[in-house]
Each structure stands twice: as structure tokens, then as C-alpha cells.
């Protein structure tokens, strides 16, 4: 049994059998950080006891405290520490007879007493927040007897989560922005600053929100009888829900007021075919929650489904985008293929220009962008596409794409065989060249 489990078992037993012979030692502050001193409260000590003897060995603290007769009971308070990070057990002995015990945990640098998932949710609330306590030893919310506040607003509904150290609360409505989460128990309050971020109908705050680009999301006929369709999926494999700032799947948005969010339930997957974004769209998710999702995107000529499953198109994270030159290696400008270069730029305005260099050519391009709300503008990249003309058979070129201004950009070339409609993508990797 791990030390942590042993501590939990001791505490659960103590809670279950309050009439047991041993007294329970309590500690203050409720959350102890390394380097801090702590107060140890020993109940039923005697006011006429001699000074206690405290010894430490590893994670074990032994307090020897004589109880003379007659005894005038009092709670003896000792100051101990500071301690290094870890989980400690405390035993209080009268001679060799144990009569009180307790356990506490000391948080290390960077550790928090609890964590909250998901990070992002709509300001309207109504989403279950999973609060995972770092350790039961803190007794932050025994038997759900505590007040949990999000941005100062108390969550009125709470329940035990699937783990003993997890509490699930229904997020109350809050103002949009970054909020603390606090757990108040008796006279003690423990606060996790900036634990959740709520979004409203205004422009997303890209400090906290990431743009995850789905470069294609459409269902459209192509050349030579082809019928192109994208197959997209977003999965939330986590045991907590995740709320996206916008919705990109082609379903009717149920929201009447505020942004059209997507609630991805725990262990769920959203998959759809086709879409209405031939020029790409960004899924807006808080940066912290984005790390917990999985994505996939394929494009397929469904007029020839028997021939293959199509071509994977990357779902592009911001870390894969660039403000500088993007380099596409070995793009075949061969008469057997149609080559289309697509350029996506977040932060560029409609009409901005960039340029492309390949094979000694310098080609300017102009991006377009059509959107009609804060939300759709945040999710819509400025876009341009160029058909690269074929050269001699066997020609391959290095294509350098310079985005407009300082926009955060990504691009790729699709290479389509004129006969078989097989598609090969060439995506950028690395930078270099025309800086």
C-alpha cells in the first residue's frame, strides 16, 4: 500500500470511528507549503504537562508528551517545521502508549492543493467542473461540507466524483474572464488563482484561447467527376467535459444567447462528414483544454471509395504555424498533376498581400476573409489559394511561402493526379530562405 493510500485509510477510519481510542491531531494552515512552519494541535493534552519532545525520522514525526494525573485538559499547540515536500505522519505518545495521531502533506514548489478541469467554459455556466484534490490529508472538503466558489460565486450543486479525491460541481454563471476557484471549509479558505476561464459573446482572448486549424471542411464536386468530402473527428478522451468556444461541426447551434459552444462530454467523440468551410476554419479551445483533445481530418474522393481511404490532412495547432517563411519541399510541377497551394493566415486582414517563390518566380497573392461576428472572425483565417502551373515533366520545386505581415500562418500544397485523382499533400516543415 502506498504511503498516500495509507494516509487516506487512516483518515477515513478516523472519520468512520470517531469514538476510537486515539485522538486526532490537526494542523494549521490547512494547506502547507515547503518552507512554512505549521501549528500542530494535540487535543486532550494537559495544561500541567512538561514540554513535549519532538523527533523526526524521514516522514515520521514522533511527539512524546506526558499526561500527569491529575490532568487539566487542554489543546496543546506546537509549532513545527519547516518541512520538505512530502506526506508526513505524526504520532503522539504518552510514554510508549500512543494516544493521538495525524497526517499532513507538504506541497513542493509549483504544486497546488487541487486542480480544476476543464479550464474553459461558457460564462453562462452549467458545465460540471471536476475538482481533484491533491491529497485527502488536506481535508479541504470532507463529506462535501465546504463552499466552492468560482469567481466568488458559490457552486450550489456538488457531488462526489468517481475518485475519492474528486468533487464535481456545476459551474455557476460568472462574468467572462479568468477566475479563481476557492474551497472554504469552516474558517479556512484555500484558493487556486486563475483556475478557470469563462468566455462570453465578445472577441476571444487569445492569451487563453488557441486556434486549431481544420484546413478543409467541405463536401464539393471536383474535376473529372470527383466528389470530395472531408471526414473530421474531435475526441475528448478525458474523464471531464471540455467546452469549445465555437462549434465547427455542421449541426444547428442550440445556443440562443452567447457564443455557439460545443460541449464534448467525457470519453466522447464527435465525427462528421463534409462541412461548410472550404477555406478552413479554426476550432477555438482554451489552450489548456486543447492539450487534452484529439483530432483527425481526411479528405476523400467519394466517387472512388473503393480505391482508398483518402488523404490525411493535418489538423494544425498554433505551434505548427509560423510568422515567417514556410518551406514546402519537392512540390511536383509536372503536367500529370494539378497543384494547388493553400495559405491560411490568422491576424491578416482581407486584402493583405504576401508572396510565394519557386523556381525563380516571385508571385504575389492577396488573402480574403469573410466573417460577420466576433466568433466567426476569430475562427476564420485570411485565405488565399494559388494554382501552381506545371513545368516540364519531372519538375520538382521548393516553394517558399511568405505570409502577409506578421500573421500566424500555415500552408500546404495538394498534388492531385489528373487520371487517378490520388492526392498527395506537401506540408511545411522547418523554416528558412527568404527571411
Amino acid at each position, binding site marked *: 500500500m502506498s504511503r498516500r493510500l495509507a494516509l487516506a485509510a487512516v483518515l477515513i477510519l478516523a472519520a468512520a470511528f470517531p469514538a476510537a481510542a486515539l485522538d486526532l491531531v490537526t494542523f494549521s494552515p490547512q494547506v502547507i507549503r515547503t518552507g512554512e512552519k505549521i501549528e500542530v494541535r494535540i487535543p486532550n493534552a494537559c495544561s500541567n504537562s512538561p514540554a513535549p519532545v519532538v523527533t523526526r525520522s524521514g516522514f515520521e514525526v514522533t511527539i512524546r508528551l506526558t499526561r500527569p494525573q491529575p490532568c487539566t485538559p487542554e489543546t496543546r499547540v506546537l509549532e513545527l517545521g519547516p518541512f520538505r515536500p512530502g506526506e508526513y505522519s505524526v504520532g503522539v505518545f504518552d510514554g510508549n502508549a500512543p494516544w493521538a495521531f495525524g497526517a499532513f502533506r507538504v506541497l513542493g514548489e509549483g504544486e497546488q492543493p487541487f486542480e480544476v478541469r476543464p479550464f474553459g467554459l461558457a460564462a453562462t455556466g452549467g458545465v460540471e467542473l471536476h475538482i481533484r484534490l491533491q491529497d485527502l490529508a488536506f481535508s479541504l472538503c470532507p463529506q462535501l461540507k465546504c463552499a466552492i466558489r468560482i469567481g466568488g460565486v458559490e457552486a450550489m450543486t456538488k457531488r462526489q466524483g468517481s475518485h475519492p479525491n474528486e468533487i464535481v460541481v456545476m459551474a455557476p454563471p460568472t462574468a467572462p474572464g479568468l477566475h479563481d476557484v476557492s474551497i472554504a471549509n469552516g474558517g479556512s479558505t484555500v484558493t487556486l488563482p486563475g483556475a478557470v476561464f469563462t468566455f462570453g459573446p465578445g472577441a476571444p482572448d487569445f492569451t487563453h484561447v488557441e486556434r486549431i486549424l481544420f484546413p478543409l471542411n467541405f463536401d464539393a464536386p471536383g474535376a473529372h467527376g470527383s466528389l470530395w468530402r472531408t471526414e473530421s473527428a474531435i475526441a475528448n478522451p478525458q474523464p471531464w467535459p471540455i467546452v469549445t468556444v465555437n462549434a465547427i461541426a455542421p449541426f444547428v447551434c442550440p445556443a440562443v444567447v452567447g457564443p455557439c459552444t460545443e460541449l464534448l462530454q467525457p470519453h466522447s467523440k464527435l465525427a462528421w462528414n463534409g462541412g461548410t468551410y472550404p477555406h478552413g476554419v479554426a476550432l477555438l479551445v482554451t489552450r489548456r483544454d486543447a492539450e487534452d483533445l484529439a483530432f483527425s481530418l481526411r479528405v476523400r474522393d467519394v466517387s472512388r471509395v473503393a*480505391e482508398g481511404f483518402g488523404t490525411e490532412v493535418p489538423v494544425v495547432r498554433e505551434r505548427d504555424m509560423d510568422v515567417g517563411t514556410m518551406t514546402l519541399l519537392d512540390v511536383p510541377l509536372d503536367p500529370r498533376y494539378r497543384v494547388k497551394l493553400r495559405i491560411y493566415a490568422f491576424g491578416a486582414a482581407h486584402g493583405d498581400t504576401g508572396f510565394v517563390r519557386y523556381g525563380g518566380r516571385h508571385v504575389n497573392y492577396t488573402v480574403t476573409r469573410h466573417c460577420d461576428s466576433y466568433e466567426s472572425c476569430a475562427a476564420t483565417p485570411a485565405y488565399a489559394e494559388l494554382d501552381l502551373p506545371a513545368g516540364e515533366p519531372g519538375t520538382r520545386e521548393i516553394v517558399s511561402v511568405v505570409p502577409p505581415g506578421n500573421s500566424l500562418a500555415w500552408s500546404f500544397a495538394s498534388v492531385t493526379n489528373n*487520371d487517378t485523382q490520388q492526392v498527395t499533400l506537401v506540408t511545411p516543415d522547418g523554416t528558412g530562405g527568404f527571411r
Partner: protein
Amino acid sequence: MRKVLLLLLFSLPAVAQDRLLVLPVAPTTRTPVDLRIYLACAPGPASVTVAGSVIKLHFEHTGHLCADPPIPYPYTVRVPGLLPAGEYRVEVTADPEDAIAATAAFVVRDAEERAFRVEPAVVRLDWPTPPVLAIDALQSLCVTAANCRVFVDGLPGTGVALHGRVILFTAPPLDAGFADVRVEHGSTFVTVQKALYVVGGDAQDAGMSLFEPVLFPLLLDAPGANGSLWRTEAVVANLESWLVYSWEGRLLNPGEVARLAGGDYPRGLVLRIPRDQAPHVAFGLRARDVSRVEDGYGTEIPVVRERDTFFDTPFTLLDVPVESGYRVKLRVYALTATTQSAAISVAPRSGPIVTTYVRLAPVCDDSGCHSYAEFDLPSTAAEGARADVTVTLPDVATWGFITVTNNETQQVTVVTPGGKGGRP
């Protein structure tokens, strides 16, 4: 008895040095450093002290609470504060004996803005020829090559040439460790301290913190099923005006584009490139059935950088087609040598989740080791059958991808992990 307990406490790290991890693998002066050690017995309170280049991680010995069976459990301790640029060695000790149970070496790189940077900022003494280095500054430090001189730890570089604002020169004889670089033009000079790190023979362990592994998942030229002939086409480009190096030495000249058709690396090849140079090198890779070269240009396969790998988390491959008529193969890679088993969970749209364990095998060359395993997913006759595949391999940087190959047309669809996860 105490000695036995101590032996138990540190038996794993004593035999496996890689069980002491420095996180992140390439720390800078702006990143906190965590030390992770794997122990079967719960240690006592830990303390970390930094004395010069030695970091001492010390556990107060408790000697009990051992796992049975002795499965190592990770314990992570943060080094207080931020470390200055330098080379460091970690030593782990435990009470009461001062036995060193595990060590690790790494280099903290300077992340602060400096007057210029050197490309590459890390070189090896073992390279067969003296490296040609570049000085890259925001402004030209020299107007003409004739009046421009460069010194490394006081020794003059040779063959100084200007390429725009970039100064190229051949390094003088170098000593292991950090070196200061000084650029003089006439009576003006600029010095950057610790601008260059020279990897000596006894500092090879620190290589991971200085060289970024770049994985080519496949480099091959091999016959496949149904008359197919698979060939990869790799391309590496250096579009900068300086030379690019790898662990072995010179890799690319300025502006050079190198192509490789085929290869003998069906389990992947890892190039190790100085970390400051890696972002400036462009890569491309395609696999193609050259027996049907008229059908298409092949399928792009990602060249995997360290940031694309998954550490301490499973990754998920969504919507993998598993219809009959297709061959579906999963390839799993780890960026270090390991013989751990990856847990591969296949979750079909309907039916139970099946988990299979596949052991990785190290693949080594002169520059280091990575690891590889492959697994053929079973197909089903149901039309439209899809499955989500989750790969779990703890404590190592992991990546994987799936190829879905049509038995008739040999068209290949690649499925790569887009985000991490767990079982959907």
C-alpha cells in the same frame, strides 16, 4: 539490514542510468529543471542542492513502504530556482550511506538575447574536420572580411568570409566545454560569453540536451504485397547561409538540398541535429509504390520532431479504417532505447475494447538509439468499420502512425496522432 534496504531502494537506478530523467530534456536558463527518479521503495524527504556544476539530490532514507512486486514508481523533485548556463551533473544519494545510486549529465543553454549567436552553438570534438561556424547578428558586425577577425576562447578562427550579415569562419582547435566567442572589426569588438559548447568525449551523456532527435519513420526500398515496390523519398534542405551539422559531423552546406530515395531503415532513422539549428532545417518524406508510379505522387509521411512526440501521456489515432480489403499497420517509436511494452488499445465503433501489449526493440547507430515496434491491426468485414487506437508507453518520448493500404490499388492513407488522449 540497512545496506540491504538501501540496495533495494536504489537497485533500479544503479543498473539503469536512464531511470534518472532530467526534464525538460533540453533545459535553458528560462526553464525550471525537474529530476525524476524511479524507485521501488518510497524514499524519505528529498533535498536538492546546487554546488557549482554538481546537483545533489539527497533522500532521507526511510527503508520501508516498498512496492511488492518491486515496480518502480516515479518521484519528481524540482531543482530550486533557475540554473545559469553551464554543464551539470546530477548525483543521487541517500542516508545514511553516501552511495551514489544514479547520475545524469546535461547542459543548460543560455536563452537570453545576446549580441550574436553562433551556428551551430554546439560542436563535437570527435568531428573529423574542424567545424565551419557562423556568426549571426541582427546587424552586421563586420563591413569587410579583411578587417574582420573572430576568436574562440582567444584563438583566432581562419577563413573568415562574409555572407550578408553572416560571418563564416573555420573554428580554431577547441577544448571541451563552453567557449567565449569574440568578433573584432577594426578597433571595435563584441564578445559573447559561453556562445559555443564543445562536446568532449566524456560529455557524451549530455548529448540529448544539445542535439534534437529528428525521426524519419521510414526510409526503405522494399517489395510489398501484390507486386508493390515501396520506396521512400526523403529530402532535407538547408536554406540558410551557414552549414548544418548532425551528431556525426557536417550534414548540409549553405543552401544545400539533399535527397535520398530508398534506404535501409524500415524501423526508422533518427538524425540528431544541434538544437539551435534544427528549426531552420526543412524536411520532407513520402512513401510511394514505384511499381505504379503513374498513379500518384505517393503519400506524405511526417518527419517527426521532438515537439511532436508524446511524453507521459497516451496518444490517440482517430477513425482508423479497419475494413477488410485493407492492410492496417501501426508503427510505434520511442526516442530513446527501451524494451518496454506499448499498450495498444483498439476501440471499434461497436464491441469491446481490445488491448494488446507490444514490446519495443532498440534500434541503435553511432549517434544513439531509438526504439521501434509494429502491430498489424485486425480488419473486419463490416463496411465502414472504424476504430480509435490509443497507444500508451510511459516515461519515454513516443510517437506512432498507422498506414492503411488498399490491397487492390495499393493506395496508402496515413493516420497520425492529432492530439493526445486516452481511451475514447
